[in-house]
Structures are given as C-alpha cells and as structure tokens.
C-alpha cells in the first residue's frame, strides 16, 4: 500500500517475488482479522438467551437431513428487523439463537418463505402431507415433492457420534445425553408419529426420515418464544 505512489520503487518490488508475496499476504489478512477477532473476543456481540438450548438428537438428525436436501437453497432462516418481515414471519433473528448452529442455515435466497419461525405454525400431519405433495396443502406451490422421506428409513446409527462431535466443539451435551442419543431420538420419533396417527395421518412413520425433519422444523423459533420475545409490531 505504501508504494502505490512511486512506480520506481514498485518496479524494484516487481523483482522480488518473495517480498511481493509477503506484502500481498499481509494486505489480505488485515481485513479478515479486523472483522473476525473482535467477534470472537467480545462476548456481548453474541448476547445469550437463557431459553436457547441445544437440539435434541432427533432434531439434530432432522437438521442434517435439511442440509442434505439443500433446503437452504430456497428457504432462509433469518427474519430481518423490518415491519413487513415481522408481520409475515414473527420476531427477527437474534444472534443468541444461533449459538448451536453448526453450520448456520440462514440462507441467501427465498424461493419459498423463511422457516426460522415455522415451529408450531402447523400440526405435524400438515408437514407430512406437505412433504408428500406440497400442492395438497399449498395449492399453487412450486416446491418439489419429497415423498421419499416418508418411505426412507431413519438412520440413527451415528447420532451419538454427532452429539459427541458437537460436544467436543463446545455444545453443552452431557455424557448421558450423548450415550442415550439413539434411545432419546427413538422416543421423540414415536411421540411425533403417534400425534400424526391421532390426527388421522399415515401410520408407521416412527422410523422414517420425515419424522426427524418435522421434529427439526417444529423446533424452529420455539426457544425464542419461550423467552417471551414476540414480533413487537405496533400498528
């Protein structure tokens, strides 16, 4: 940067590839460091919200399915603090909500609506029908069907490994939670499957992938509601 005004001195630099490369490296590191280091060091940049807890084993499995199917390509999970977004979706996204998101799934394009506040908006059965055939619940929808999720087996073989990996990275799972992850997941899946059956939906979904995905979607926005944070729209 300092040599910009003097082509003569720059000319010299052009004969020294090593020095040139070192100067380039410094130039590109400054910006990233200046933005990222404060983010890590200053705790208040990510204010904690007491009701935000780690995902359950089943929700985590569902989240990984959400990643596998590339849902993030069409659905954001970050409501912006505008009145029209609060009206449409609910409370705007807080930093404290995201502390267990590995990776973050905020997205960059809304071909479908934002999903960060979708938890509890529809019954479990609605989601089953919607995945099977989106147009059965939303007549003009452009979303492709995900009917195979109702048929493919839910794979929970490495859910304990998933939890322990996250635990290593800092998510506060207890050793018990890690060890019993698969059992906990099966339990939660059975509950959701039962609620679907009670609502008059298909039976035998407890060991299908769709259940995990629904558990994840129903979780979205729940923590922040528990903290009493609302959309705060004033008319």
């Amino acid at each position, binding site marked *: *940067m300092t*040599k*910009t005004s003097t*082509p003569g001195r*720059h*000319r010299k630099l*052009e004969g020294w*590839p090593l020095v040139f*490369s070192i100067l*380039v*490296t410094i130039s*590109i590191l*400054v*910006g*990233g460091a200046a*933005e*990222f280091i404060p*983010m890590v060091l200053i705790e208040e940049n*990510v204010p904690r919200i007491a009701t935000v807890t780690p995902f359950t084993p089943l929700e985590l499995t569902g989240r990984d399915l959400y*990643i596998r*199917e*590339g849902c*993030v*390509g*069409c659905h954001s999970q*970050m409501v*912006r603090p*505008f009145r*029209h977004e609060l*009206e*449409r979706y609910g409370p705007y*996204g*807080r*930093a404290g*909500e*995201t*502390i267990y*998101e590995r*990776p*973050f*799934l*905020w*997205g*960059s*394009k809304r*071909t*479908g*609506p934002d999903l960060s506040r979708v938890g509890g908006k529809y019954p479990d059965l609605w989601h089953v029908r919607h995945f099977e055939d989106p147009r059965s619940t939303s*007549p003009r*929808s*452009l979303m*492709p*069907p*995900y009917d*195979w999720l109702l048929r493919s087996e839910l794979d929970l073989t490495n859910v304990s*490994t*998933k939890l322990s*990996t996250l635990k290593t990275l800092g*998510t506060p799972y207890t050793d018990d939670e890690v060890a019993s992850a698969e059992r906990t997941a099966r339990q939660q899946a059975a509950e959701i499957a039962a609620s679907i059956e009670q609502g008059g939906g298909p039976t035998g979904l407890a060991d299908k992938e769709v259940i995990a995905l629904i558990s994840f979607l129903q979780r979205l926005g729940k923590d922040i509601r528990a903290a009493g944070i609302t959309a705060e729209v004033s*008319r």
Partner: protein
Amino acid sequence: MPTTSVRAEASIKPDMEVYRYDEQIVRMFVLATAIWGLVGMLVGALIALQMPFWQANLGPYLTFGRLRPLHTNAVIFAFAGNAIFAAIYYSTQRLCKARMAFDSLSRVHFWGWQSIIVAAAITLPMGITTSKEYAELEWPIDIAIAVVWVIFAVNFFTTLRNRREKHMYVALWFYIATIITVAVLHIGNSLALPVSMTQSYPIYAGVQDALVQWWYGHNAVAFFLTTPFLGLMYYFLPKAAERPVFSYRLSIVHFWSLVFLYIWAGPHHLNYTAVPEWAVTVGMVFSVMLWMPSWGGMINGLFTLRGAWHKLRDDVVLKMFVIGITFYGMSTFEGPLLSLKSVNALSHYTDWTIGHVHAGALGWNGFMTFGMIYWLMPRLWRTPLWSDRLANTHFWVGTVGMLLYVMAMYSAGVTQGLMWRAFDEAGRLLYPDFMETMIQIVPMYWVRLVGGLMYLAGMVLMLYNMYRTIKSAPKDLPDPAFTSPREVAA
C-alpha cells in the same frame, strides 16, 4: 513462433540456452474448461427449468436443492477454475521466459483438479454437503483441494524463481494474490470436525460461522473470479489488441487497493441479520470503496484499446473481451450498490442477487474465457480457427442470452421485493400469502430459462468450433522452443 524450434536448435551456441514451454498442459486445461463449462451450464439450465416447473425435479438425486450446489461448483471451480489454470500456465511461462518448473506437478494439478470435480459431481447429488455456499464439498474433498492447490502453488512459485525476466508483469501480481488468498480462504472456512467420512460440523457456530462463510464466499468471488481474470485480461487483452496496457501506474494503484479492500467487504452479505451492526456497516463502507479499484481495472482494460477500436469490427476475441470487461464494470458498480443497506433491504433474498452474480459470471468470467479460448485455439493447435463466423454467432447468441437472463432476474427480484414489503391502507400486508409473490414472477423464470439456453447454445457452438479446429490440427505439436543468453554465474 513454433517453427523457430528447429532453427533454434540448429543455431545453438554454447553461451545460449534453449527452453521450451509446456503447451500440452495448456491444451488440457482449455479442453477441460470447455467440457466442464458445458456440464455446469446444462445443470444450470435444468435447475432454471425446475424453478417454474416443479415436475422437472427428479427426486431424490436430481432435485433443485441438491443440484444447485452442483451447478455453482461446476461453473465456478470446473469451468472458471480450469480457464484460469489455462491462462496461468500459458502466460506465466511466457512472462517468466521459463517452462513450468515441474511437468509432473502440472499433471498432478490437472488430474487432481479434475478428480475433485468428478467427486463433487458424485457427492453433491447424493446429498453429501456442508451447505456452506461455494464450499459445499465435504472434508475429504476439501483436503484434496488444499493439497492440489499447494502443489499448484509450489509449481507456480518455483517457476517464478526460475524466471529469466527480472520484473514481474502485472498479470503475475494478480496470479500471486489469487494463489495465496484462495489457499487462506479455503482452509480458513473449511475447518471442521468430522463425524464420518461424509459429514462434518464446522468449528464455527452461528454468527461466527456466517461471518467466516461470507468472508470466504465474498472473497471466492474476489480471488477466484476476479483477480485471476484480471491477470488474464492483463496478459491476453494487450496481446489481442496489439497495444500496451493503458497505464502502468493505474495498474499498481488498483492492484494494491483491490487486494487490500476486497477482504473487508464480506459482511455485506449479512445486512440486517443477527450479525452485529458494526460488522455489516464496515462491510458496506468497504464495499463502496471497492468500486474505485474495480473500475480502475475496467478503465485500464478498455483504454488499452485506445486507437484499436476499429479492430473490434472483425476480431471476435476483442469483441468478447470488451463485453467481458464492460460486464465487469457493470457488476462491480452493482455490487457496491447492493451492499448499501437501503438497497439491500429490497434486494436481499430475491432474484436480484441471482441477476447480479450472473452478470458477473456470464459476462465477465464467461466472455473473458471465451475470448481467451478463441485467441488460444489457433496458437495452441497451430491451425486457423475452423470458423470465425460461428465464433461471431456465439458472441451474439451469448450476448443476447445473458441480457435476457439478467433483465428477467432484475425485474423478478425488484417485483418480489416490492411485493413482500407492500402494505394496504389498513396497514396489513398486501400479499400475506408468500405464494402470490412467487406466482407473479414465474413468467420471468421462463424468460431466464430462454436466456440461459441461448447462452448454453453459444457454448455448444464454441465446442463444435473447437472440435473442428482440433480435427484439422497437425498431429505433432512439439513444445515451442526459445533461446536466450545463458546466465553466467557471478
């Protein structure tokens, strides 16, 4: 130029040394560029069809969600990637007056990179993804990318050390910045803890993950799709125009300011999200500053044609370059504009962003690549291009195609953005049903598909032209040889 090889050897003197450029590796990268370009754009056309026509989603493997990262990875890392390697391998040898330092590493680089692309083409439709944009590949492939990149770097920097030309030309500065920064970005953003061979969790969470991802994502655009293509421009444009670069001083100023400023701009992808206000404001301010060095590059490119504009009439290479540089200027003006919070409030999450990136990708990266390939074909295969007329058709089909594409996306983006925020007189959302805002822009999705298909058709014309040119090329293509005075040990 190539015919000198025999004569050079015949007239060899003890105080002269003979060296040959590796042209085979450049031919390989050129072919890979064209083939992967076709694949990447075909996938693009399919997902463009899937948006207005959901029946085109053939689940589970061929759904929009799984194919979108395949499209972006194929066009960025396979099409543009191979193009920049072709440019770097061709021009670095000439600018350094030295053969690439290690033929073996050049081959490992080539085949390693193609294997990575094949691995991406297999794993992404299988749903093996990190979901981080332009960094979707899982950790084993990430490690392979890092290894191949380091091999490339070793080969490149050793060639720099072996150079017979004292001063490094501006194209080489941009290549240096590319190689260093892509390594830093890729490694920094890919740090993750594996769960299995096909899955990992990033070491960053939430807000930090978002910031690191867009530090990477934005600078992948900067150092994979901008700096190497500026290097390409600085080498091939003066060659094609037969004019020196407009301003040496401008190239120094815009190089250093571009390299320094670009990195800061990442957070503008996160305007109005949970990322702290100060970070996105810094990102926005630096994005606006970035406009100037970007246009420094455009001006240096376009003004290089001073006194040579008449050549545009019948030189398809120059026409391609001029459209490419013009689109670079447009998208680097649009970028700072979109980073402004008030504009971003409207544009974010809409197709405006898609229009913006395609102005850059189709216009700048695509047309600079096509121009380079049309310039290289007769030189690398030592036979005239099979059809200049066909190349000219490619130029027009491609230009009209991408104009349709970006216009459709701009109008779709602005329309939907305005509908999302519209209130009625009673203060209620005018379009509370999200679907309404989507149905409105479906016609624009069809226009986009037509534009994209036209661009793809141009690509097919180029491939056919290449095929016919190569068919009539001589069987034997020896590496061109050059002589220069032997360096005397001091």
